[in-house]
């Protein structure tokens, strides 16, 4: 890696976390939009509790509007998308204007869904653009360390969401393997005690291991 300021490593990592938070959470919530059509309110209170965020929403509809689109709500997905773009903007010369443009498109698509009667259509475009961003940075950024720092952020976020939501737990061995591999390629130094827990926790999970693993994942890097 050529002369990259250290602050960039932190931004790359958080860029990875925020894009993954946006895209993975949207994927998780996808079926909820369908459920509300048939009057089956999804359990947003449990969701908020699992993510340890404030739950002030009065209905599932309000949750799906405010949690997803409200740019003034610090816990919202829109805020995560804003942080994704903000980190990307501060990395333009590292990731390139072309790669960054997909993040601009993702946020613009998200904003076009505010108050929409068919919000999943713009949200689908948001997911598409983030996936395009993922392909573009993997293809266009020549520096392996830069790519892998972003991927480390994405891995941490994905594991965190899976563990918190108890979702896709069958993928944990694959995701843990990816995180350890990417850590080496990114030449990042993780917290040793967290590294040991992540490496040694038997999968599939048993008993109280989920919370221990979650805390280790979230404290893995101090970036």
């Amino acid at each position: 890696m050529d002369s990259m300021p250290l602050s960039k490593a932190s931004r790359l990592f958080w860029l990875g976390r925020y894009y993954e938070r946006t895209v993975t959470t949207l994927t998780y919530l996808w079926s909820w939009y369908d459920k509300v059509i048939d009057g089956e309110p999804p359990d947003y209170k449990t969701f908020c509790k699992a993510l340890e965020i404030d739950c002030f929403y009065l209905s599932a509809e309000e949750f799906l509007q405010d949690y997803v689109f409200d740019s003034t709500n610090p816990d919202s997905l829109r805020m995560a998308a804003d942080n994704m773009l903000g980190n990307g903007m501060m990395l333009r010369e590292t990731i390139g204007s072309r790669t960054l443009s997909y993040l601009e498109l993702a946020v613009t698509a998200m904003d076009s869904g505010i108050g929409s009667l068919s919000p999943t259509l713009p949200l689908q475009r948001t997911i598409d653009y983030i996936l395009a961003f993922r392909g573009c940075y993997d293809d266009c950024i020549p520096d392996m360390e830069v790519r892998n720092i972003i991927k480390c952020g994405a891995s941490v976020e994905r594991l965190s969401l899976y563990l918190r939501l108890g979702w896709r737990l069958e993928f944990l061995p694959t995701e843990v393997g990816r995180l350890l591999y990417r850590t080496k390629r990114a030449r990042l130094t993780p917290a040793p005690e967290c590294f040991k827990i992540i490496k040694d926790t038997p999968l599939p999970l048993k008993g109280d291991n989920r919370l221990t693993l979650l805390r280790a994942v979230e404290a893995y890097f101090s970036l």
Partner: protein
Amino acid sequence: MDALLAHKDEINEQLARYGVKFGIYKDGNFKERLFPFDPHPRQIAADDFRQLEKGLAQRVAALNHFLYDIYHEKKIIKDKIVPEEFVYRSPGYLAQCEDITPPKDRYSHISGIDLVLGKDGEWYVLEDNLRIPSGASYPLIARTLCRRCSPATFRQHRVVDNRDYGKLLKHTMDYVNTGGINVIFTPGRYNAAYFEHAYLAEQAGAVLAESGDLFVENRKLYCHTSCGATQVGALYRRISDEYLDPLFFEASSLIGIPNLMDAYMAGNVAILNTPGNGVADDKGIYYFVPRMVSYYLGEEPILKNAPTYLPYFPEDFAFVMEHIGQLVVKDVSEAGGYGVIFGEDLTKGQLDELKAAIRTSPRRFIAQEVVDFQDMPVTEGEEIVQRKADLRAFVLTAEKPVVWPSGLTRFSRNPDSFVVNSSQGGGFKDTWILCH
């Protein structure tokens, strides 16, 4: 041209996609907005540009001589070409920079000269910007996107390519680099021109850094990088002089680099543009630039200033008092289109107040005749309307001043306004230098 205009929406979509934004602070809040783009380009014929190019290079060469002189021998003051009050009372004059010689004697590496084209067909210089002139990135990216949206337009019109600005900037930085990497030093994301800082870093292959990334040790500037401490040889700073070094200038600055000036004085880093340049782009000093051209270069100035009066001189003071209703009065300490007062817009009471202010501090103001500059077509909805527009030309000085064959054309979106600044809601156009 119709093909290009027909693609206006697509071009604006592309500009949004690439985040071509400009930040403004309103009511204490930072807001980013897309910089409105109009696809009608300003077109300058090859012969006209050659003349403009000569005039701009001449002006910037003279300004560089002036800066060297002011911070060293001060011959121009001793020879009574420029009164000393205009130098030493200028807020841009920094006594701390006395006797410091920058690498290769270059002061203004990136100069932004604001001009208007009068209805008489003459170019008039309105302002010189020798500190941190913004704007090159906008026509630079707009050209790329316009070519993408309407390739037919660029097959039909032979336009000089402007997309080498990044190389030109890199060469300018390399020329004065004292050994180390090139860095663009930004105050951060919430600066009005953050898009430009990041885009130019990408185009010039420089590292974009903030104050926390940079430090001085043993009179050398370093960047904390993943490879350890890496020495910086050229720093293109995008923050004002007073915030550059809290140990040298404004002590409360949180965005500066402690001891940067120490490294600079030791000759271990080049700073682009050089601290202290504000003395030469002061609105009061502007009056004397044509005289500088004759004094330092022994040449007749090619470019004209807008007719300007300095209330400091008794004969000009009398003229300003008598004709204030027809003049535009500028507060020399303001920038960005602020502090510009058109006499014709004022009531009698307001005119009297302005006269009193000029009487109290004549050095604080200049007055200019309103240049009746040419309107340019601007698309507004389905209509084409005429609006005032200026041109910011960029001159990059390495071995010698080189004029970038393009520039930022800014236009007013208000039909009654001469103020084109982006911070006041103006838009921008590309500037085409034609091959013929």
